[in-house]
Every structure is written in C-alpha cells, then in structure tokens.
C-alpha cells in the first residue's frame, strides 16, 4: 500500500468538484495546496488556526448550492473540535477534509495530543457522512455526496521538502475567491 499525499488528495477533490471553493488551514496545508493546485477558488488561510471550517461554513451559507471544502489538518481540527457540532447543526453543503499526518508538521513535527478517530467524532456530532481513507484506492471509492460530510485522509510522511509560501497577498486571495462566488448578475451590476 502506498501512502496518500496531499497533492493526490487535492487532485481527487478537484476531479469531483472542479468549481469548489477550498478553504485551507494555515501552515503547510495552505502552502501544499498552493503548490499542488493554485487556483482562484482557493481561500488560503495563513493564520487563524482552527478557522477553516467556520469560514467554509460562512461561505456555504452565503452561497447555497456551491460546493465548499474545508481543508483542515488534524492539529487544526483538534484545536477547535467545536466546529463539528457547528457545521452539523447548520446543515450546509460542506465537505470537511481532515488531512492527518499525526503531527504539527509546520512547527517542527511535534506530536498532536493524540491520533483521533475523526469520523466517529463527526458522526457523533451529526455529520451525515464520514469516511476514513489511507490510500488512493480508498480515496477514489469514498462516497461523500451526502453533506455535511467528512473525509478523514491519513497522509504519509513528506518525501520532498515543503514548497514555497503562498505568493498572493491576503487581499488578493479574498478578491479571487469573491470573483469565483459572486453571481454574474451582481458582477454586471457592479461594473455599470
């Protein structure tokens, strides 16, 4: 069995949801997403650890029908587990992906408090779907259509160095995402 990588994971997500807005948690997760597939629909968080899911939820509530993905980390979700009942209760179209390497890699590889069963936690909180995968086969087979859904993806150790930091400014990131989620009628109105 070959371990999953974040680029593989992102590739599968974008194959399924090419128009998704992806809100990525801070540190290496945002950097990895940027280096794997930079696109206007990516809302890279550079700080605000634990806020990927709440911000994704706000976007989903503002744009019902739009696929919104929260790309969380195991450390980020453990920091703010309260997002699980928040997301479940709001009953929005969220796909909550937890990239789990078992450590706070961005700060030097320290262990998280514990390896957690995020699918059990999500289901207990009220998510309608929760799937754990640790290889490409499982990822491709994962059925995640009933939201709110969690994909708990166990990722293998990094084999290459981490890529460059996100080069867009925070303001540019917001403008790009806003351009992706604003209905065309509103854009036309604004340009008049």
């Amino acid at each position, binding site marked *: 069995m070959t371990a999953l990588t974040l680029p593989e994971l992102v590739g599968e997500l974008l194959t399924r949801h090419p128009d998704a807005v992806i809100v990525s948690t801070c540190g290496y997760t945002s950097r990895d997403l940027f280096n794997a597939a930079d696109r206007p629909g990516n809302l890279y*968080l550079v700080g*605000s650890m*634990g806020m990927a*899911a*709440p*911000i994704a939820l706000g*976007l989903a*509530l*503002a744009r019902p029908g739009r696929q919104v993905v929260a790309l969380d980390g195991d450390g980020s979700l453990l920091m703010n587990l309260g997002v699980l009942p928040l997301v479940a209760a709001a009953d929005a179209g969220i796909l909550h992906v937890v990239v789990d390497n078992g450590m706070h890699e961005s700060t030097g590889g320290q262990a998280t408090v514990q390896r957690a069963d995020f699918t059990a936690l999500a289901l207990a909180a009220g998510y309608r779907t929760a799937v754990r995968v640790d290889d490409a086969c499982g990822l491709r087979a994962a059925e995640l259509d009933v939201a709110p859904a969690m994909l708990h993806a166990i990722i293998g150790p990094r084999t290459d160095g981490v890529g460059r930091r996100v080069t867009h400014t925070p303001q540019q*990131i917001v403008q790009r995402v806003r351009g992706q989620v604003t209905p065309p009628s509103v854009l036309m109105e604004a340009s008049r």
Partner: protein
Amino acid sequence: MRAAPAGTTTAHTLLHSLLDHGYGLATGVPCSLLTGAFRLLEHPGDDRRLAGLRYVPAPREDSAIGVASGAAVAGERAFVLMQNSGLGYSLNVITSFNLIYDVPVLLVVSWRGHDGNDAVEHDVIGRELLNLLDLFRLPYTVLDHEDVAGSVTAVVDDMDRERRCGVLIVREGI
C-alpha cells in the same frame, strides 16, 4: 400594528436596523444582556423580515466570527453577537484573519462589568474593554437606546470606511 413584547423593543429595532443595512446572517454566543436579541433570532414569530435573517448558533465566539467572515468573503453582510468576555477568544481570528485580509464583520458586544459592580469574572475585561478595542483600533459605538438606528448607522459607516471590524457595544440589557 401589534406592540412589541415588553423588553424586546430595543432588540427588535436593532435587528431591523441591521436588516436595513443589508445584514442577512447572524451568528454568535448568547449573553444575558442580549437575551431579547437572541429570543427574536430564535423565534422571529410572524415577523417575516426577521424570519429572513439566518441565525447560526456558535459554540464559541471566534468560530462565530469565522462563520461571519466566510459570508463576508462571499460579499454578504454578517454580524456576530457576543459577551465582551468572548473578545478574548476572538483576538486570534480578528488579528490573523479580519485585520490581515481586510474582511470586516460587525460585532455586537455586551459590556458586562462596565461599572465595576458586576460579577467578579467581568471586572478585568469590563474595565479594559475600550482599551482593548483602542489597542487593535476597532471602531466602536456605544448603543444609544434612544437612537438605535443612528447607533447602527454610525458603527456600520465607521466599519465600511476603515475596513476593520466595527463594534456596537451594548451596555444595558436589550
């Protein structure tokens, strides 16, 4: 028109003023000083405008700001209700998201401990609330119960001009 139930008039006017300014999403964590506002958000009754205001209860204030911020990124207006104690939890998201990405959201913050005669847990944050807002240069307005709509307009205008989270401070219960 049926009179608003006793004690909820200010809250009713406040929420309608926010609707007038285009706010469509409310979130937050309850405070006893904001009971009337939360009651209306949970039970808008036959008030169709209020019923159109989406309310998302949050487990903690920073997560509420996250939800409001996501809506603001999409171009919608959202506000957060909280007790001043919740500002402590919120400083991380305010300083590393809202003030960095220039995504302001409106905070409606109760002021427990404002006169030093409240429960002891409110003493420190109550004494320092305005200093805290000044420190992070968050524009604020203390709600004038005689001119609720004017207070809302003032804080929203400040927020739009400065592109920083505006704070509407609620000192007496609504």
